[in-house]
């Protein structure tokens, strides 16, 4: 096998990625701050009779999350433990965040805590929070004043 000249100066893993970063002008990771100091992002949707809160956390399990609801406040706690490696294995590069996170969301209305549901799918936690009855939009029937005469 003939080694071409550039092969001898083969850039390291990191150097190649830096080149691609510059070329693509892309963001490294989604969040503006380094993963180790950042909180997972959340989206909140108004699904009419319920709020839906979504929180992405890749490679977790359902029981890595604790969801607490009180009044209008939602708190999502999650823990990501660093992977335990068997003997003979080592970490070459570590970018993924580890540690405990808590995201708090203040919802626009109170919710029925006893009916809150959460499921974890494709790396995203989806929490459905049914709105408290008194907070549901109500149609007001318009009475015809003339009919009352």
């Amino acid at each position, binding site marked *: 096998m003939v080694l071409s000249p550039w092969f001898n100066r083969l850039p390291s*893993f990191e150097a*190649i990625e830096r080149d691609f970063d510059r070329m693509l002008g892309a963001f490294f*990771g989604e969040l503006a701050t380094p993963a180790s100091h950042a909180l997972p992002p959340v*989206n909140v949707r108004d699904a009419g009779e319920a709020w839906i809160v979504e929180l992405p956390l890749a*490679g977790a399990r359902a029981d890595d999350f604790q969801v607490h609801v009180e009044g209008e406040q939602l708190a999502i706690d999650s823990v990501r433990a660093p992977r335990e*490696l068997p003997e003979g294995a080592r970490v070459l590069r570590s*970018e*993924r965040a580890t540690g405990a996170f808590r995201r708090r969301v203040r919802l626009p209305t109170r919710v029925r805590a006893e009916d809150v549901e959460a499921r974890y799918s*494709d790396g995203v936690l989806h929490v459905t929070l049914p709105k408290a009855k008194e907070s549901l939009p109500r149609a007001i029937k318009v009475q015809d004043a003339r009919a009352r005469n």
Partner: protein
Amino acid sequence: MTQNTTSPQVVENSTQRLPELRQVIPLADVLEFPDRLEILVELPGVAPDSVDVRHEGRELLVLAERRIEDARLVHGEFGSVRFARTFALPEDVSGEVRADMADGLLTLALPKAEERRARRIEVKRS
């Protein structure tokens, strides 16, 4: 005409929306085992059949799209993105790359060439 506008508690949010298909480099960990390398790539919100992994020469390319609907969003911190990352394969990796995906985490297993695998040498009594 007299007008009165009451701001509802919930308004279409003024949070910065992510532009359509922002390009993002997914975070990855690289682990070394005696017989293989593993690259763990975070692709939260991506279904397994939306990931494209290509092994081209000494490079591994990972491409994926995540679509987040704008529908009824009142607060949006993450949106639709295109994940893209190229990994340069070190010399000692050879053979079929295996890709497994679950819960938004893509695990790439890169076997090491036979002669590069760390192995215990049995110390024989002479």
